[in-house]
């Protein structure tokens, strides 16, 4: 029974407009629960730092990050243009206005190049298998994955993303509930296609 799941989600916490409870989260069907997980992981707050290439994305429309920002050798940006150059320890005050670089108490980052954890454009089954594969998920076991989605400040940021950004469209509690429902059932993956 593999309980090795992952999620190097970089961004997903508390709310602005009240997130809509996902109907799947109420179901005990683990495949339906995974659909809720997928909705979260592929929302802009998560996908923007889990891109298909090495350039992160920005905004609710997922445009390429300005300044040609790159993942870098450790996922913390290029040498000399680290994520921390602009992303501080908290979102800037609302009085600063729109389009300010958001921040988080730990550190802004992407998954490192050794395990990129691409969420952008990945089909459900492939996303599911990637999450469970310790060779791809940074060696996270089931407990580490649950901790990541439940408590990592960078993940939680997705629910309080600062002025002008939509939070993850599923309530965090519903996301974690769906995650547990899926993993407690053995983390089955949906069929191909």
């Amino acid at each position, binding site marked *: 029974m593999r309980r090795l799941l992952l999620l190097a989600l970089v961004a997903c916490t508390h709310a602005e407009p009240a997130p809509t409870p996902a109907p799947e989260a109420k179901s005990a069907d683990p495949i339906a629960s995974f659909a809720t997980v997928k909705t979260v992981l592929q929302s802009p707050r998560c996908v923007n730092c889990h891109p298909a290439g090495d350039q992160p994305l920005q905004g609710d429309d997922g445009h390429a990050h300005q*300044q040609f920002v790159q993942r870098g050798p450790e996922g913390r940006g*290029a*040498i*000399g*243009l680290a994520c921390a150059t602009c992303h*501080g320890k*908290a979102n800037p005050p609302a009085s600063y206005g729109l*389009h*300010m*670089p958001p921040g988080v108490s730990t550190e802004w980052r992407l998954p490192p190049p050794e395990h990129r954890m691409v969420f952008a454009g990945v089909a459900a089954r492939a996303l599911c298998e990637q999450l469970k594969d310790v060779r791809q998920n940074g060696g996270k076991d089931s407990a580490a994955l649950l901790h990541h989605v439940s408590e990592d400040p960078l993940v939680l940021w997705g629910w309080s993303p600062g002025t002008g950004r939509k939070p993850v469209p599923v309530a965090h509690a519903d996301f974690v509930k769906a995650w547990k429902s899926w993993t407690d059932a053995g983390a089955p993956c949906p069929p191909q296609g």
Partner: protein
Amino acid sequence: MKLNVNGTVHEVDAPEDMPLLWVLRDVLGMTGTKFGCGMAQCGACTVHLDGQATRSCVLPVSSVGSRMVTTIEGLSPDGTHPVQKAWAEVDVVQCGYCQPGQIMSAAALLAHHPNPTDAEIDLALAGNICRCGAYQRIREAVRAAATQRRADR
């Protein structure tokens, strides 16, 4: 609050959410660091926080804490930091407005990576915009500074 800038601890009376850049320029009178866009898009406001290039225009001063701020005024006591010397030798500057930010980014890059390739220089300085388009000379000066730093060691 206390603020360590260029090795001197200042007692600063400023609102907690005031950007560090405003404190540097308007409270402490250090006008070498420039205001460009006010949203971390152009790099003109770049300073070092514990040696890390940082955009001071979007950083609330209260978040600096005990970290050491270095501005262009404090990069060297007499303008002889290898990057500053290279900038003069290559005659990089046209209008000059973005140059403090460019120099601070270049200095931070070389402190972490003494021998960058041209591609690495371009990536590191991609967040520093030069309206005059002096990018070729900027890259040349960074290369020259890297060479000088290695020779000095």
